[in-house]
């Protein structure tokens, strides 16, 4: 009985801390139920009055993982190869392009850092060559004389800042979009993990996250040259078709022109190369990207698809897109945009984005429009032509607009992206997981039932098998669950479905310590010891086995936590919290209760 005072204090303190940390969660839950029961009329008012309080409770609540509350988890990677290529700018030559490609392949294969591979590949090629001939930076003091190590450090620094800037941009965009408690974290050196609870419009968010919003103003292609090339290219496919009666792919009927099968070579204007159904655009891209076809294209000309269909045939379920010829040269980019708003075209009543340029942009815009009166200028966003209006007069106000947008939502997102700044490097979504809210609710329910049933079955079994001892272990088990949740809340951990599985598993394993102790007590009793002596012996003799068994499982928890991602981390956290809590409750709490019940020498306690 001696020394139990301290134990009782410990138990009280832990209990107090657990309740303290779990209080907001319970209060938030009760408030929510209360609000749901309120009549409709009072609800809004009540919510308005208690907004601050609710928000505070919510923030301090045990948070649920995306798999439980529904939402979207996205891992994005900053395209380092492309970033390096862009940093080199005009200095880049075929050697560098080749080195970048090899390094990219190697880093993919070996799972190593791309920049390290880049330097290695470059040095393997020619040990005396210097990377400094590709990169210059005044601010970073990168000159012709910089060593390869300095370049390596410089590139890494550039990547880091690109990732940081990308995170800033994404944060702004997500905030403007309006998400409750988004989380944006850096992972490794080039990855960004975005978690958006409750997001339902995945497609919209995807383009919002990835949208580089690379706005370009380009001149349209030379109409005569374009048409000459068109005829040449169609001729090429005619010859191809005639040459091979056996088609080269399954998609192609033998003897037919592969290109005109999917692309109608006519258009509304002379700048249009042709048009195709949305389902055929991929095939068209494949055909025109062939090197021999590319060689027939006029110099400095590229083909780009229109962003919106120019014609829809709903009864056939077909949308037709134009393939437009534009110059490769970019006259101006979107970084001169200072202001952007959504409004409506008075003539067509379609949404459009009006832009205001800064003074430098306005000056350039005035020069470009002045020099190209009567010709179209294509407004290109992320590789798609949004419109190619004819320049009627010289524009010196620095105003322009983007039309051809599908709806107001798209226009709003575009403004968001334009104003939050362009991403410094392309981002690629390399992992995306979404869970619908209903599935999340089902999972919460499944987790709840599993916990209750698991607890119930184990509790009954313990009482049947160990009688009074079992009842004491059950009490410890209940407190144990309270402790686990308290630990999770205190460490601001997130409860996931695998996390709940971890709790359920802990219920089964938590009694293990008591099983070890009680079995030992029975053994001591069999050996003829008195009840008190048997209890003492039982607790002390079982201790080393309990410690060994739990330490090893705890190690597994740590390893899982450090290597796992997302929900698995949640499992590892509850597993570890469970071990700590169950050791405490199984050893300390049951001992105090057992001692209390056997405080009289004559007292009897049944261990079954």
């Amino acid at each position, binding site marked *: 009985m001696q020394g139990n005072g301290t134990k009782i204090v410990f138990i009280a303190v832990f209990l107090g801390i657990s309740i303290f940390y779990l209080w907001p969660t319970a209060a938030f839950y009760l408030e929510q139920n209360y609000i749901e029961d309120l009549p409709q009329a009072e609800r809004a008012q009540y919510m308005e009055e208690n907004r601050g309080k609710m928000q505070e409770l919510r923030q301090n609540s045990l948070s649920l993982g995306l798999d439980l509350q529904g939402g979207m988890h996205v891992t994005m990677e900053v395209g380092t190869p492309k970033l390096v290529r862009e940093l080199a700018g005009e200095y880049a030559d075929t050697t560098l392009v080749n080195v970048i490609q090899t390094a990219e392949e190697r880093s993919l294969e070996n799972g190593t850092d791309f920049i390290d591979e880049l330097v290695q590949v470059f040095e393997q090629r020619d040990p005396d060559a210097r990377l400094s001939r590709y990169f210059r930076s005044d601010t970073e003091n990168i000159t012709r004389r910089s060593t390869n190590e300095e370049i390596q450090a410089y590139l890494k620094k550039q990547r880091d800042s690109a990732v940081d800037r990308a995170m800033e941009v994404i944060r702004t965009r997500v905030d403007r979009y309006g998400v409750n408690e988004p989380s944006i974290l850096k992972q490794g050196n080039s990855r960004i993990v975005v978690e958006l609870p409750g997001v339902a419009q995945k497609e919209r968010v995807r383009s919002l996250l990835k949208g580089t919003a690379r706005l370009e103003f380009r001149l349209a292609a030379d109409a005569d040259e374009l048409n000459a090339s068109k005829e040449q290219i169609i001729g090429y496919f005619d010859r191809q078709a005639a040459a091979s009666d056996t088609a080269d792919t399954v998609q192609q009927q033998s003897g037919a022109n592969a290109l005109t099968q999917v692309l109608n070579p006519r258009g509304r204007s002379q700048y249009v190369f042709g048009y195709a159904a949305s389902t055929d655009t991929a095939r068209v891209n494949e055909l025109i990207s062939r090197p021999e076809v590319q060689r027939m294209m006029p110099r400095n000309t590229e083909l780009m698809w229109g962003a919106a269909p120019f014609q829809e045939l709903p009864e056939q379920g077909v949308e037709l897109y134009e393939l437009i010829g534009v110059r490769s040269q970019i006259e101006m980019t979107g970084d001169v945009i200072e202001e952007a708003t959504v409004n409506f075209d008075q003539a067509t009543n379609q949404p459009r984005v009006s832009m205001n340029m800064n003074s430098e942009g306005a000056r350039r815009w005035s020069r470009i429009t002045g020099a190209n009166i009567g010709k179209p200028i294509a407004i290109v966003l992320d590789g798609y032509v949004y419109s190619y209006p004819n320049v009627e007069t010289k524009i010196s106000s620095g105003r322009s607009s983007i039309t051809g947008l599908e709806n107001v939502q798209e226009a709003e997102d575009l403004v968001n992206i334009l104003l939050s700044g362009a991403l410094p490097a392309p981002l690629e979504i390399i992992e995306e997981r979404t869970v619908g809210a209903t599935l999340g609710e089902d999972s919460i329910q499944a987790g709840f039932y599993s916990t209750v049933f698991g607890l119930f079955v184990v509790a009954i*079994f313990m009482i049947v098998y160990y009688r009074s001892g079992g009842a004491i272990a059950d009490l410890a088990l209940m407190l144990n669950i309270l402790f686990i949740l308290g630990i999770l809340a205190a460490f601001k951990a997130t409860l996931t479905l695998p996390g709940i599985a971890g709790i359920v598993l802990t219920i089964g394993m938590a009694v293990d310590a008591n099983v070890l102790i009680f079995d030992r007590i029975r053994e001591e009793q069999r050996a003829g010891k008195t009840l008190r002596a048997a209890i003492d012996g039982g607790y002390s003799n079982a201790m080393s086995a309990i410690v060994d068994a739990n330490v*090893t499982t705890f190690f*597994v928890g740590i390893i899982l936590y450090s290597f796992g991602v997302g929900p698995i981390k949640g499992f590892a956290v509850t*597993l570890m919290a469970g071990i700590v809590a169950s050791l405490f409750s199984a050893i300390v709490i049951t001992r105090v209760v057992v001692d209390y019940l056997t405080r009289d020498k004559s007292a009897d306690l049944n261990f079954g």
Partner: protein
Amino acid sequence: MRWFETPSFDFIKGHKIAYFISGALLVAALIGIVGKGLQYGIDFRGGKEFVLQFDQPVEVTQIRSSLSDPLGSAPEVKKFGSDLEILIRTDNPGEISTVQNIITSTMNEVYPENENIVIKTDVVGPRFAEDLKSGALNAIIFALIVIFIYILIRFKNWTFSLGAVVALFHDVLIVLGVFTIFNDIAPFSMQIDQAIIAAFLTIVGYSLNDTVVVFDRIRENMIQYKTMDFTEMINKSLNDTLSRTVITSVTTLFVVTVLFIFGGEVLKGFSFALVLGVLIGTYSSLFVASAIVVELQLRKEQAS
């Protein structure tokens, strides 16, 4: 109630049979794994997975055949719990939104009167999948090394370490074999993904727990009965701890079974791995781990 109060089973004699059973299971598992290859899930292989919920029951085979053409290759289609929820997995390399549109629009064509919504999507790029795979592999290797070292330090005898680690390999390999062989015919996903790796490591932790308790008793008995024959002492230790081994296995089996039945479709594979793991882990700590310690110890003594 008391089970196995003073048991006196001859576990060491049972070792011969245990070797036979374990050997057969291991060979079957290895044949399955080598023959079929590990059945990686989306986490380790990459790809796109969509779970669609319909208003009315649908046919798996019809969905598979109707999607084959639009997606370019036959997708994997499985029920996700009920007849209303269907999991579709494809390797189509297109954009996420595009692929999702192909699936939903095709479904709308095939089942015009039957509304569908996408309730879950998982998209993992090939590079990310590679990273997850090497992470999982590292976790397992690291876990085994840590366990080996911990037991070496605590029991100061490498035969114990080796016995424990071999038993763990034994457990994980058999569960892995079951998952590989029965993946195609199981009514739920038995592919190797992150959750299964977590389950494996939990099995490792659990099975080790059992083994360590037995070892702990062996260590205690070694001090108490110095003159007892080693084999006999191991047998006594196994019998001493038998009651505890069985009770803990029973309670753990209870909860993982509850999890398997009530834990929902997302956790089906995970909890099934745990059910198998608890059964095999209990068996191996009784019949495999200590058997190996006996063998190694006898050899060690003969050698010295």
